């Protein structure tokens, strides 16, 4: 496989904030039309700047536009953004072009616009088909709307991914089973199934702190996970990353890039990138970001970044190990940059043998990986590799 180079573009705009989300996004009604135009222009400036740095190839194997709800900014603007992308970057053959969609505005009109912009992969944030669950998550759509959007997209596009969440407060196995069965009927190409995480500073975290909702206990979380793995195991979906399943050949190339430790450009307010051995994260306020970008000429390498981190050799090694272990391909111990296989085994061999005996890891000669049981406990296992 050719080396992945990804580009992530963040559109931090939503109609309303979901209770669990702690990613950068702001309500649409706070943006004027001019704000949106300026934001698109700012993206162009950042794209141009990053392409000129020469820190990574400008031939992209994936572009991912996420949010927020990117489709809210009008397909015409998305066309402009994609035009900017190809102005400074080259799209590799069969480049994966993903856009995130929200069930509330999935219209034929919108889809035509997106297809015109060139997208060939659609990731729909269903989260659930169950109304009470959606209400609990603070989602702005109903189960019926999610169903209709998914069915519509299934008919119209050839590469569809659905996102769902399980382990909600008061969740039950039955509720989750019903959701996942519906997903399977729809036959998406790719499925992302996330166990709900209560992130600091979110409305959900406040609800939990105030005792308004109770998080599900670890045992139920684990049961939901185990049932999910068991249910999908005999199907054609391959469990290729902790939270992701795909039909053969339909893995998200973009997300795989994260796990395989390949570089990616991050563009837009709140976006994160990994270039030239540095990780950076842009300021999350879109107006501030726009202001920073509007000069068009920059002295700093990452002019919108509020955090830049040079990855030390040690961190690089740990990063490669931990990210690769999230995937079902596992970690090829002979290909870790910065540490020899012999050194790797000297350091971790005993622990890995122990984990294998416990059924948490597998080993195939020089390649090691996590079993599904191990994936569920991955944080614990990752700690082994940290200094």
């Amino acid at each position, binding site marked *: 496989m050719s080396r992945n180079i990804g580009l992530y573009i963040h559109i931090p705009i939503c109609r309303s904030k979901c209770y669990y989300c702690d990613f950068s996004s702001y309500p649409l009604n706070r943006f004027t039309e001019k704000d949106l135009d300026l934001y698109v222009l700012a993206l162009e400036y950042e794209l141009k700047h990053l392409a000129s740095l020469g820190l990574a190839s400008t031939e992209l194997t994936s572009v991912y536009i996420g949010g927020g709800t990117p489709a809210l900014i009008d397909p015409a603007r998305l066309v402009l953004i994609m035009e900017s992308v190809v102005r400074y970057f080259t799209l590799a053959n069969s480049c994966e072009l993903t856009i995130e969609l929200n069930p509330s505005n999935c219209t034929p009109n919108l889809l035509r616009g997106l297809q015109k912009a060139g997208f060939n992969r659609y990731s729909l944030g269903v989260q659930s088909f169950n109304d009470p669950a959606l209400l609990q998550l603070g989602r702005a759509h109903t189960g019926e709307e999610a169903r209709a959007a998914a069915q519509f997209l299934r008919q119209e596009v050839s590469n569809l991914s659905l996102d769902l969440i399980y382990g909600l407060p008061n969740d039950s196995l039955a509720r989750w089973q019903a959701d996942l069965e519906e997903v399977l009927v729809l036959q998406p190409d790719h499925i992302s199934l996330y166990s709900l995480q209560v992130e600091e500073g979110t409305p959900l975290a406040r609800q939990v702190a105030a005792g308004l909702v109770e998080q599900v206990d*670890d045992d139920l979380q684990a049961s939901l996970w185990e049932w999910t793995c068991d249910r999908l195991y005999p199907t054609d979906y391959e469990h290729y990353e902790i939270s992701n399943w795909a039909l053969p050949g339909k893995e998200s190339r973009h997300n795989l890039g994260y796990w395989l430790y390949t570089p990616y450009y991050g563009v837009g307010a709140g976006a*994160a990138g990994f270039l030239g051995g540095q990780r950076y994260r842009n300021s999350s306020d879109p107006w501030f970001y726009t202001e920073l970008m509007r000069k068009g000429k920059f002295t700093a390498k990452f002019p919108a970044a509020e955090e830049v981190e040079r990855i030390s050799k040690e961190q690089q090694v740990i990063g490669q190990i931990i990210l690769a272990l999230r995937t079902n391909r596992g970690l090829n111990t002979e290909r870790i940059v910065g540490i020899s296989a012999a050194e790797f085994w000297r350091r971790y061999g005993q622990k890995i043998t122990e*984990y294998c005996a416990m059924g948490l890891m597998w080993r195939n000669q020089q390649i090691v990986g996590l079993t599904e049981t191990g994936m569920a406990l*991955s944080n*614990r296992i990752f700690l082994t590799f940290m200094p």
Partner: protein
Amino acid sequence: MQSKIRNFCIIAHIDHGKSTLADRLLEHTGTLTQREMTDQVLDSMDLERERGITIKMQAVRLAYQAQDGEEYILNLIDTPGHVDFSYEVSRSLAACEGALLVIDASQGVEAQTLANLYLALENDLEIIPVINKIDLPGADPERIKEQLAEIGLDPADAILASAKTGVGIEEILEAVVEKVPEPTGDLNAPLQALIFDSEYDSYRGVLAYIRVIQGQVKVDDQITFMATQKEFAVDGLGVFRPKLIPVDSLKAGEVGCLISGVKNVKDVRVGDTLTLVDNPATKPLPGYRRAVPMVFSGLYPVENDVYGDLREALEKLQLNDAALEFEPESSVALGFGFRCGFLGLLHMDIIQERLEREYGLDIITTAPSVRYRVRKTDGEELTVDNPALLPKPQEIEAVYEPYVRGSIIVPQDFVGPVMELAQDKRGVFITMEYLDSSRVRLLYDLPLGEIIMDFFDKLKSRTKGYASFDYHYDGYRESAMVKLDILVNNRPVDALSSIVHQDKAYNRGRELAKKLREIIPRQLFEVPIQATIGNKIIARETISAMRKDVLAKCYGGDISRKRKLLEKQREGKRRMKSLGNVDIPQEAFMAVLKSDE
């Protein structure tokens, strides 16, 4: 001269406004301007302020222009307010002639008010009742006055005050001048000065807080401490206003501090008598008692490589704390550490917190123990303050444990629950007496080992906080004690062993295993916890294996954030002790201390 001196202290139930009142007296006498006031000046250590208790005492000199036109020197001596420090309290009371008894105008007389009052009366102090917080809406001074009459004080003497608004402050100062007796010591008699506190100062060495009872002491005098027999020259004398002001001499009746060449607080013992080498007093002042640690526990660094730092920190704390003892010990489970002796649990908590806060050390404290005496079958006698070192049952002829005589003052409605608690703690009932129409004093002989567990907490919860508790050491008695061991993942953890009475061993074992199951987080594998006596397993619990610990989502490729979350988790893990693959959090070692009910 003595006719212009008044030595007094303030005693009160916790939260009745002692510290605020002290602040106000300083302010009113111009000892400190309002701007100089940090709140509650007398409690100088952060820790004290946070916990609302006073650990170290100080003596502040107030200059007061009384209504009779004369200027008086009022020495306000601060007293600590916890049962662990009751001996220190008694010594500072002995340095006074009078006490302000502060009572909250809405809460009224409480158990601790009485306990303090009795202590003050034992020291023959003149009592001035102050009804404080009369500005509060719930204030009911008339009711409080009735209560005063019931406990044998004259309600007519009571001063209505609000330390917050300043009402009554002038009256209080006048009452101190009028009612507190002037000191009477003979200026020409051989020197007798009572040490009521000491403090280590890195520049000046040890400061001894003294009350000159008779005679006088001057700079350059050769002095001797009567209990330790050590001799020193007086390098300096001073009084606090509240900063240290040098003086040339301290005379009978005066209070101040003395600086000599002493480098170790252990040489300056609270309660000891100071006299002159040339013209010594024939006998020391009564009431000296050496501060003896009663409670012992192991302190271990979480990371073994800071063992040396821990030793240094303990040495520094000891400079200022004559009651703290420590010696090196080691544990299979915890590595190298120190067995430390404390006056009581609060003292232990304070030391632990200071080590963590002031010295940045992560400490594991093992469950506290008392010092047992053991007579072995071969006739050898030994003392055991570390449960792990108790000999095997077949080698033990007899075990003796320390007892205390405990005095509990409690509203009569709670007598039942208190007696039940005392019984449960193997207490032996001695007497019960009515102090007033509603309050009772119960005397019990109790094993100290039971008291250091959680007696005080339970007493408070059973009496809604209305009980006061005081105790003094009362010798050793033979008891049927056994060693309770804990096995985690089939390995004995010496630091979790405890010595318990055999009648209670089964319950304790079950309780402890259950508690540890809750405290020890789930591991990647199943972990059995067993409680054993000798070779007999008396309880077993199982921590089921952890099933899920995963970061599901990676928002837009923000890997750094993910790494930070893992790093945070790793920090948490680091604070635990890893024993045979099992991560045991610090609080597990303290779990032995508390029992559920």
